Every structure is written in C-alpha cells, then in structure tokens.
C-alpha cells in the first residue's frame, strides 16, 4: 500500500488557476475547511467551485478565489443563507451554474462513470433548463420517445473531502449518519485529496464502526492530510459539533469590509492549520 500522507500546502501546490474544484460535505457539515483555508491563503484564482455549498463557497468567494459557483444551495444550516456568498452574488462578483440538488448528484455520478450526462425528468419546465442553454435535453431512443434533461457530467480537476478517520494509503471512514456525496466527488475528479481527523493503522479502522463506514477506498484518493479539527467550524459529529459561536462571528464578518478584514487577519492570515488551531483554541 502506498503512503499518501501530505500536508494542506502540498495539496495547494497540486492546484492551478482556473481549475474546477469539487468540495465534499454538505452545507455547514463535514467540510474540508483546513484545505479550503489553505486555498484561501494561496495566490490561486479564477476557480470554479462545485459544492453542496456551505462556508467553503463563502470563504473562497470572500477571498476572491472564485470565478464561478456550480451549486443548488449555499447555506450555513443554522444560518440559512451564506452571507459571503450572498455578497458575491449581489455584487455580480461570481457567475453561476444553477442546479437542482438531484441534478447535481447525477452530474457527479456521470463524471464518475465517464459518461457525458445522465437522463432525468428533473429540470423539465423549470428555469434550470429554460434559462441555461448549456443544459440540454435528450430524446429516449426507445419506444416511449420521451424527452429528458441530460444532466451534464460535473467533471472535476480536483476534489477535496473531509472524513473522520483514514489510513496512510488513503482509505477513508465516515462516522456520522450521512456519507453525503464525498465518494462521488472523489470519483468525479482527476486529483483527489482527503483530510481526516486522524490517520490510523488500517487494521484499527474496523473498530471505529461497521464496514459500511469505510466509504472512501484508496482507489478514490491521491493524497491524505491528517487535520484534527480540519472541518472546524462546520459540524463533524461524533468528533465535534458545529461551532455555532464561531460561525456567527464568521457570518457577521460579511456585514462590512472592516469586519471582514478583521476576521481575515485573525483567522486566515494567522498561517497554517496548526496556527489556526492555536488562535481558535482548538
């Protein structure tokens, strides 16, 4: 088994301007925030971010990394609308591909299976289809002859996910109730990077939970980053809940440029993930 252990900075070094990057997790849940912050601190720009969006999208928008967001929602859960993303949209700073949540799943699955689209009724009659000419329809070649939406493959240059546990070879394990779409993000991408709360010996993973929790296998990953509290401030139960107080402070920083500047100076410009943990007190 190879040893794929790397750092957040190594991950950033693999990324380029203009890349399409998928981010796992869901809303403000189990987001690979140490990787996202490393990108936010880097000179990278013009990124297309593909995400069941949370503060990953907001933070990258606020730091000017984003050209386009491919999304169905961007939310902080307990704060329904992501304020930094709202600022980016309402100032016209980012373009979007607007998707239904289910089309999003099909797009990842299509990319993972290396087909250009998957057929669905989802989107028919809505402005997802009618106002986005890049999303097209397909006619069934069978006797029914029905017209379907051809949900386009969301092919990614890179995927970033955060799991609870993993091993040095890049197998990953989730311990909360929902795997979200992290395996599909990895399968849809050329370069796949997973942060974990803790790297363990492979043999120890089974004692954490049933075999079904070993959702990410090493064929899906190119690099693994050990990042305790790597999902902070998003939820990463059972290891830790969402840091609601911190999230509120983050959300509040979207109100003025001064507030954002202060937040950024304190929590981003402080340095790498170890420094961040010291500043936050994790």
């Amino acid at each position, binding site marked *: 088994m190879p040893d794929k252990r790397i750092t957040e900075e190594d991950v950033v070094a693999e990324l380029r301007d203009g890349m399409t990057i998928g981010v796992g997790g869901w809303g403000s849940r189990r987001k690979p925030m140490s990787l996202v912050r490393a990108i936010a601190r880097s000179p990278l720009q013009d990124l297309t971010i593909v995400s069941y969006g949370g503060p990953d999208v907001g933070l990258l928008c606020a730091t000017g990394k984003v050209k386009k967001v491919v999304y*169905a*929602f961007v939310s902080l859960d307990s704060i329904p609308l992501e304020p930094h*993303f*709202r600022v980016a949209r309402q100032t016209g700073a980012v373009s979007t591909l607007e998707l239904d949540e289910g089309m999003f*799943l099909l797009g990842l699955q299509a990319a993972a299976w290396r087909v250009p689209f998957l057929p669905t009724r989802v989107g028919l*009659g809505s*402005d997802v289809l009618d*106002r986005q000419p890049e999303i097209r329809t397909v006619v069934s070649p069978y006797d029914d002859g029905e017209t379907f939406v051809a949900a386009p493959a969301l092919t990614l240059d890179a995927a970033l996910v955060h799991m609870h546990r993993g091993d040095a070879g890049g197998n990953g394990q989730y311990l909360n109730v929902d795997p979200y779409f992290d395996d599909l993000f990895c399968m849809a991408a050329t370069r796949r990077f997973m942060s974990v709360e803790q790297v363990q010996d492979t043999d120890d993973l089974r004692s954490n939970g049933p075999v079904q929790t070993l959702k990410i296998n090493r064929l899906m990953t190119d690099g693994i980053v050990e990042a305790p509290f790597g999902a902070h401030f998003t939820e990463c139960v059972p290891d830790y809940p969402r840091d609601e107080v911190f999230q509120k402070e983050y959300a509040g920083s979207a109100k003025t440029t001064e507030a954002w500047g202060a937040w950024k100076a304190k929590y981003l410009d402080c340095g790498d993930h170890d420094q961040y943990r010291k500043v936050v007190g994790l």
Partner: protein
Amino acid sequence: MSAGGGPDSTPGPETAGRSRAGAGANHGLAADLVTRAEYCVVAVAECFRGDGEILANPIGTIPMIGGRVARASFEPDLVMTDGEATFVSGPYPVGATDTVKVVEAWNPYRSMFDMVWSGRRHVMMGASQIDRFGNQNFAFVGSWEQPKAQLLGFRGAPGNTIQNTTSYWIPNHSPKVFVPKVDVVTGVGYDRAAALGPEASRYHEIRRVVTNLGVLDFATPDHTMRLHSVHPGVSVDEIVAATGFDLVVPDDVGETRAPTPDELELIQHVVDPHGLREQEVPTP
C-alpha cells in the same frame, strides 16, 4: 434536510405567548378558542389526507407540526424524516433536540432522491414568490447575473415538482409573495407542466397552498389558483387584496375547519408544547 428542504432551520426561542380569546374555558372548538396558527396546522395536516404510506416531508415549523398531527390522527401510515438522515416514528415535539426518537430506517441525502424520483413523497416547501399557476421561486430575486437578493438557490424544487406531489406553506400571504410573474421558476407550475405534454407532466401535482390567511388549490379547468377556504377571522376580500394576481373565488368559499379536540390536544401538548407555531403565525 431533504431534497427540496432547506438545511435544518433551527427554531427560535422556546416559548411564545398565546393570545387566545376565551382562554381559561374548557377546550371548546369555537373559533375564538383556536388560534390562527392552529388553523394553519390543521390546514397543513389536511394536505396529507389520503396519502397513505408515502413520505410526508413538510418543511418549516407549522408544516412539521401539521404533518405530525396528520400522522398521529387520520393518516397513520405516513413515513416522516427527522430532518436529517433517518425516518422516525412519532409523534414527538418540534424544536426539541433531546427527544429519543424511534428510528425506522436510514435515509441519507442521496437516498432521498430515490424516494422523490419514484414518486413516493409529498413535500411541502416554502416560496419567496408564487404565481397563479403555482410556479414558485425561492432561488433569488432580481437578475440572474446579479440578483437584488440571493436566496436559497434552486435546491430540490425542479425535481420535487416534476416527480412527486408538492404543496406550499406561506406564512406571510402578501402581494410580494403572490406575484403575477416570478423572477425565476424553481418549482414548476401547472402551465409549464402542461406545456411539457402528458408524459413529462404525469407525476406533477401541486395540491395546495396553505397560508396564514387561508388555503388555496388549483381545482379549476385551467389549473389557476383558487381560494379553497379562509381561516376564521379572515375575509375573502382580505385574501384577494393580499394576492397580487386574479384569484379564482368560488361563490361558496367555506372556512378552514377547526381542529378536533384530539387534534388540539396533540398540537398543544404533544407536537408543539412550547408554542413555536405562535411565533411563526402570531394571532392577529
């Protein structure tokens, strides 16, 4: 939360003052003993009548209360989620985080699409804008490129409306919400569904729109929105004035029914003991 649902919205503070004319009397069902919010709850519950064994997925405080009341009374076979990744038995209180729930099944987000796309679900969503054919918008207001107000995004609305039964809950019935034309079509209305033809639209059904003022449906020849009932204390004129398009108003519009004594007991003491419903729809 589920496809189409917002991520969990945490309810606000725990208690709400009740404004109940005649409070102190026995549980009677005269209009002045039932709050507006309780009529809304019953109107929501009625949306699920006859659904049988399907996933009832009401999103929002009063919708969740209504769905749970429906299951605990006249639709016992309904399946309901915990708002995250499991199906749970009930009833249990809304807004409580310490309730031990009986888990029936695992339903992570990606499984929700299996339920939606196989049609085994009736969702109740919100709407920032809705038109007379039931086209819904909660994505953003203003232009596509630079919206005046970025809202939820498309969420699961396109898939929900074209694949399973949909109802809407609107706690603030006003011309700002009930508009002649929505800025963006997230949820598909009857005119657009009809234009797709009978095959593509065969799973499309918008059953009802429940608001703080009354109940609306689409039981008209061209499926334009019709006034179904007014909540007691609300006039037909009031609803017409709060609707920004021509509403079909039958000659004999009735009142939304009152909760039965058992339903009122369920609402007040089992499903919403802290009165969260009164925060969402205060009694005028």
